[in-house]
């Protein structure tokens, strides 16, 4: 999750636009973002009751925007807050609470001009509230999980470092906070000073952690509960029955166009099967179809037509331990990679939903390159590489390697069994010790390199190649659980970070991926996708790959309920 500072000198808005504009052409047509499920209907066809019923898959751990870090919470926060910038239906960052944004020539000073807007309690939204909420996010005493997204801001790295220093006094922390590069010369102007230019900074300003907050509200006790909640989105939090249901209703003080929906009822179902059952029983209007139910649902004459596939910005991949064990041998990793029929993996384990992955950056994000595939499925070549690898490792047969540890957490048995069996078939004598460990234990062992092969996955925080590579493949990266290290790769990431030209930068990211994949650092398997079911009377759902919890939950305000 650590990102390298990415550098650009100009045209940040245009770059992001170009970045996301490229997505539609790169993603397969069936998964293209920006489509809406149905055209906007005329008022005469609308149902009298404009209530959308969805499932947010469990109790949000918190609705304090600063502290939230999970998709349950974000699904709600998207409805009840609105940051300076927001993603449009093509996933471009466009001004939202900000009326306009001015980027300095060196792309290090961002000046946001706020529109006339109010919170749900009627108080005006002023630039000082942003200074407060951004400093709050960076306050080491709060230790907000997503504070690292502001590490590009001047003074940000110092504050993040202070977080690890338990001995830091309040005075030191307050002084460091005073140095954070955010200021509000007047109520309408919010200025951010970056430590280094960053191409993706406007995308950061779309994140839920950057919304304005009133200090008086935050300081009141129990502020993040429904009774006292104050937001700034198209909807406001009306009821929050813990572990049961959240209801948001239209926010009469919302500065934008009034949404058609009057209420959204958010259930907290905890099982995929429960969500599907609730959808089929007509209790909720949107559902993600569990892969076990795919064949039944898609072939059903009633349910089938309600479904469509939506790509998610996520990847399933498996780590090879690059530091120790047989997987530290390049030919061994190549052999393992070439022995897997990835299309069969996607077909059998995900009912064919999703795309075969051969590199880390997902389709739809600039830097995705379908030509990066150095080791396609080829059993003969795999066996040849294995023969070389065994020679290099000084053993006669795969059996002499002993049991190869293969770690995962419960829920991944079938995928692991698929891979282990494919490898055992390709390389007779190879035996795996399939270790199903409790999630928390698994994460620790995986991170410390305790498994030879282990399960992994990544979902994009924001649609930029840096987020899918930095931290995951660079030497010593916080999420580099393959313990992969290649200085040429690191050099290319550094170079990309300081490359002002968008096309060149994307090219550098592609070259970096080529190196990591030539090294067979990991084995990418599948780019994520879901089959979603949308009730036929729900219109205007924006189908975009970047779903938080449900399809369309970034843009509840476009949804309408038709007569039914």
């Amino acid at each position, binding site marked *: *999750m*650590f990102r390298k500072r990415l550098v650009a000198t100009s045209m940040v808005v245009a770059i992001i636009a170009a970045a996301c504009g490229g997505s539609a052409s790169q993603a397969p047509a069936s998964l293209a973002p920006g489509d809406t499920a149905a055209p906007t209907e005329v008022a005469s066809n609308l149902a009298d009751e404009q209530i959308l019923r969805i499932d947010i898959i469990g*109790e949000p*751990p*918190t*609705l*304090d925007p600063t*502290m939230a870090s999970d998709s349950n919470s974000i699904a709600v926060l998207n409805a009840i807050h609105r940051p300076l910038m927001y993603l449009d239906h093509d996933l471009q960052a466009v001004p939202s609470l900000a009326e306009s944004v001015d980027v300095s020539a060196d792309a290090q000073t961002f000046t946001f001009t706020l529109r006339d807007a109010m919170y749900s309690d009627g108080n005006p939204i002023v630039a000082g509230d942003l200074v407060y909420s951004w400093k709050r996010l960076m306050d*080491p*005493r709060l*230790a*907000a*999980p997503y*504070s*690292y997204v502001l590490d590009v801001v001047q003074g940000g790295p110092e504050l*993040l*470092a202070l*977080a*690890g*220093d*338990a001995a830091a006094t309040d005075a030191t922390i307050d002084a460091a906070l005073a140095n954070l590069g955010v200021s509000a010369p007047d109520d309408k102007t919010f200025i951010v000073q970056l430590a280094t230019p960053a191409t993706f900074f406007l995308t950061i300003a779309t994140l839920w952690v950057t919304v304005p907050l009133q200090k008086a509200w935050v300081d009141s006790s*129990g502020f*993040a*509960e429904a009774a006292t909640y104050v937001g700034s989105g198209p909807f406001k939090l009306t009821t929050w*029955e*813990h*572990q*049961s*249901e959240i209801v948001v209703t239209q926010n009469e003080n919302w500065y934008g166009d009034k949404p058609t929906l009057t209420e959204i009822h958010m*259930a*907290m*179902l*905890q*099982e995929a*099967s*429960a969500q599907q*059952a*609730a959808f*089929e*029983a*007509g*209790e909720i209007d949107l559902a993600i179809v569990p892969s076990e139910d795919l064949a039944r649902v898609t072939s059903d004459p009633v349910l089938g037509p309600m479904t469509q596939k939506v790509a998610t910005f996520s990847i399933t991949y498996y780590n090879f331990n690059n530091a120790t064990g047989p997987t530290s041998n390049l030919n061994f990793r190549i052999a393992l990679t070439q022995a897997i029929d990835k299309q069969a993996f996607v077909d059998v384990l995900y009912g064919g939903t999703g795309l075969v992955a051969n590199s880390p950056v997902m389709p739809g994000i600039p830097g995705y390159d379908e030509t990066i595939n150095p080791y396609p499925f080829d059993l003969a070549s795999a066996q040849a590489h294995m023969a070389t690898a065994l020679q290099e490792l000084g053993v006669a047969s795969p059996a002499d390697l002993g049991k190869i540890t293969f770690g995962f957490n419960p829920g991944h048995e079938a995928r692991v069994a698929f891979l282990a069996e494919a490898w055992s078939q390709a390389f007779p004598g190879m035996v795996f010790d399939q270790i199903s460990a*409790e*999630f*928390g*234990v698994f*994460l*620790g*062992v995986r*991170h410390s390199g305790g498994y030879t092969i282990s399960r992994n*996955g*990544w*979902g994009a925080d924001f649609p930029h190649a840096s987020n899918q590579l930095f931290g995951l493949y660079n030497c010593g990266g*916080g*999420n580099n659980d393959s313990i992969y290290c290649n200085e040429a790769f690191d050099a290319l990431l550094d170079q990309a970070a300081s490359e002002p030209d968008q096309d060149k930068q994307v090219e550098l990211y592609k070259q970096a991926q080529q190196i990591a994949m030539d090294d067979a650092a990991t084995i990418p398997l599948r780019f994520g996708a879901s089959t979603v079911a949308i009730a036929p009377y729900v219109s205007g759902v924006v189908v975009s790959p970047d779903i938080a919890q449900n399809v369309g939950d970034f843009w509840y305000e476009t949804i309408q309920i038709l007569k039914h």
Partner: protein
Amino acid sequence: MATYLIRRFLWIIPVLFVVSVITFGLMHAVPGGPWAREKALPEATVARLNAKYGLDKPVHEQYINWVGGIVTRFDFGPSYKYVERSVGDIVADGVWPTVQLGVMAFLLAILIGIPLGVIGALGHNRWPDYLSTAISIVGISTPSFVLAILLVVVFSVTLGWFPTNGWKGPNTWVLPTIALAGFPISQIARYTRASMLEVTRRDYVRTAHSKGIRNTAVVTRHMIRNALIPVVTILGPILAFLVTGSFIIEKIFSIPGIGKFYVQSIGQRDYGLLMAMTLIYAFAVAFLNLIVDILYAYIDPRIRYS
């Protein structure tokens, strides 16, 4: 009797102490922590969070602080998962749905299980016995999560009689209660049947029969009363299991109870919530066993406590 009861009740305190010390120690011996995520947090953030919640202190010190909070302020500490809420709030919100579900399932299990067992025993080796045995075998072999899904598919999705989820009134209570009661119904029926068969052969029953007492009177006054003694032994644990062990049912029906925290808090290393669940469980079992012992003395006059 009164002294005995007070002594037994006070004994719950050392039980809770021992249970909490062992659980607390084991819990901290488990690798991982509340901040472990698939996407790792920066190490500095983890260190700060540990310091903020005192998780960087030695385990015994953490235990003393935890006990101190409970004893002095009745404060069970913060939740590491639901960061804005205290463990006390979460438990207070969720305890009633869980207790209600457990007690309803318990009553259902008794109301069906005991008659089922009695009928089976009275019709020993004839069709009522086979029917009773068949029902309880199906009940025991079907895991609650399978029963729950089947109930939802049939009665919610297909027939539309009951909602698939929630806890908002009697029509939402029906399916979870049945799903949870399935196993204990069978369990109680089996025990009752066995125990009834046992007393059928007791001399006092034969004597009663030979004295010409009406059959129903023998059954109700002598047999059932005596047969229930061993059954009562297992009612305590069954109720405790129902009140605290409903986590799978709560998950499938999305019931806003505390049962799911029983497993979830371990996975999330939500230490405060985990300890609260431990204490609740331990107290419930200890207390219910005490009740069982009192019931024992009431049903079986041969037992006297002093």
